[in-house]
């Protein structure tokens, strides 16, 4: 049962290291408080301005007139800012200059086509950069087409009693949408990223735990005792993982009940992610220590890498970079993986995807373990 003795005393010693403990817990709490308060506005859902759209009507028929009236409806104009153009080229130029999101073009045979029962099209040309705004334009045009089709059907069935008044048509229905609990507020966001950061700072516990056995004389005393190597290392690893995991749980509970951070409804998955990250950071610390074979160097590398990982993962400031290589690289950063898993779990309800990421974290841990194992064998020899 040496295994439990080592784990127990490792935990006891880590808990008594109040300086590190305060540093590890106070830093994220203060960061959550400061960034969560200061950047609250940056995380609020943005207002959508009117979408600028070019309009070219080459048809002088009745249906085209109706379409134009439709576009000038008050509710439509709340969405779209119409920019009449004189030619297709002028419209395309405005789109290319990003001064318009789309071009709506009614060809000269539009009304005639409809009246003679032939196919008639309203052309929508959109910018490749404005998918969201283009979709607004398409939806508006689709609404009109649906109505036009309905009118045609009524006409063909000779249902004279059925009247259709564009002015009365309720093509836009206002529905209140609440973002509460669906996207993270600043406080929610930083609660997650700081949790991941302190779990990763657990690397330092891994470094210290391993260094003690190899670079400090107390390790000599332990190794000269009749304890088996696996009991020794497993006990120590469990002690370190437990310490990091406990700190993670403390931060989750503190941020939830003091700051009101949203951790979603599936707390077990969040704990699984935090636990997985605790194991990863412990093994990461051991690996750094074995590769450098020097406690100071390993600690220094960890102290540089973890803030860099946090930064690149958007832990301090949320950012998007439109660079494929960078985004691929981010998937190799444990912080990014863990944050994605947690956000998916809270806001996307994609638990399956979270488990996939947890599997990736464990795979990464195994790779680090084997690197440490192989390098360790060489060192000891």
């Amino acid at each position, binding site marked *: 049962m*040496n295994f439990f*003795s080592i784990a127990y*005393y490792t935990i*006891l*010693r880590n808990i*008594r*290291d109040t300086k590190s403990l305060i540093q590890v817990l106070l830093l994220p709490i203060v960061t959550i408080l400061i960034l969560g308060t200061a950047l609250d506005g940056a995380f609020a859902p943005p207002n959508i301005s009117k979408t600028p759209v070019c309009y070219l009507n080459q048809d002088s028929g009745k249906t085209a007139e109706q379409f134009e009236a439709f576009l000038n409806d008050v509710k439509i104009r709340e969405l779209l800012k119409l920019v009449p153009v004189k030619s297709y080229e002028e419209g395309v130029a405005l789109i290319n200059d990003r001064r318009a999101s789309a071009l709506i073009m009614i060809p000269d045979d539009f009304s005639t086509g409809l009246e003679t029962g032939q196919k008639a099209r309203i052309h929508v040309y959109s910018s490749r950069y404005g998918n969201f705004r283009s979709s607004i334009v398409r939806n508006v045009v689709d609404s009109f087409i649906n109505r036009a089709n309905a009118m045609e059907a009524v006409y063909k069935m000779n249902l004279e009693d059925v009247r259709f008044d564009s002015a009365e048509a309720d093509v836009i229905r206002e529905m209140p949408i609440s973002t509460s609990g669906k996207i993270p507020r600043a406080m929610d966001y930083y609660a997650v990223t700081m949790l991941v950061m302190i779990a990763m700072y657990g690397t330092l516990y891994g470094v210290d735990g391993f260094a003690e056995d190899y670079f*400090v*004389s*107390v390790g*000599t*005393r*332990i*190794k*000269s*005792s*009749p*304890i*088996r190597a696996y009991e020794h290392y497993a006990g120590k690893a469990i002690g370190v993982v437990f310490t990091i995991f406990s700190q993670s749980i403390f931060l989750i509970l503190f941020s939830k009940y003091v700051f009101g951070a949203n951790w979603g409804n599936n707390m077990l998955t969040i704990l699984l992610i935090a636990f997985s990250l605790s194991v990863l950071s412990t093994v990461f610390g051991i690996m750094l220590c074995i590769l450098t074979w020097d406690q100071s160097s390993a600690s220094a590398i960890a102290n540089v890498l973890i803030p860099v990982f946090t930064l690149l993962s958007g832990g301090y400031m949320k950012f998007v970079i439109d660079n494929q290589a960078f985004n691929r690289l981010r998937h190799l950063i444990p912080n990014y993986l863990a944050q994605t898993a947690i956000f998916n779990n809270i806001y996307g309800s994609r638990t399956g995807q979270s488990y996939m990421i947890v599997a990736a974290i464990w795979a990464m841990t195994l790779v680090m373990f084997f690197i440490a194992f192989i390098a360790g064998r060489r060192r000891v020899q």
Partner: protein
Amino acid sequence: MTVRITNLVKRYNELLAVDHLTLNIDQGEIFGLLGPNGAGKTSVINAIMGLIGIDGGEIKIFDKSLNDFEREIKKSIGIVPQDIAVFEDLTAYENLAFFGKLYQLRGDLLKKRVEEALHFTGLWERRKEFPKKYSGGMKRRLNIACALVHQPKLIIMDEPTVGIDPQSRKHIIESVKTLNQKGSTIIYTSHYMEEVEELCTRIAIMDHGRIIALGTKEELTSLIGLEEKVVLGLASVNYTLVDKIKKVAGVKDCVVTDHQVTVISERDKGNLGRIIDCVSDSESEVLSIHMEKPTLEGVFLTLTGRSLRD
């Protein structure tokens, strides 16, 4: 026989740290292991503790092969490392309890052994304190207590008195004697020759991975009993003088430390006058002359060519 080492070889890449060393240590001995830095003492101790692999030879402890019965043998060995090997963030009591548990001590037996070890080292009254509050001597005593908690039959003490006050040193020396009287075999290394002379029943002097002398204090001093040692206190020393003295007939060695020249010469050569002439020729002034009987320090110096604290 407590320890039987036969043809032990240990290499670190190209360096031959232990060179076909053979050594037997009897039960109940306080065995002194001396040697200058790099002589191979630590490698031998680490090999006995099973901390390093060996490249040749065999180690038997309590008549069992270390290779085959390592865990069983380790249960009966206690180590006092040169560097203090205790947890600064555990109290003295907790330190001993932790190490006791590694030796499968549990419950009341653990409490009893911890108490005994703390009483033995005079730390019981301060058992609840953290080692960081201890003096250097108290830390050394705690270092020893941690090695004694499981009451080992073989205790290896590697420089247990380095850097401590005379009172603590005296306490430790007395403790070593008491442990030995209680039946423990002790392997003791130290840079303090007077400790080795006072404590050890047999002494081995190592150099370049080999034992170059082995025996009781008397046996070792008799090795240089045919020599004289003259210590000259001089106003100034230059290395030309050393070369000149070394050329004097019968002089075997000459070592300079500060304003002192130690000359080892064959006995009854009548060369003292010639040595003093050399000093006069080098325009230095003789402040003192001291003739010494053969000591362990002298043996060490003669055999290794180095002072133990070099």
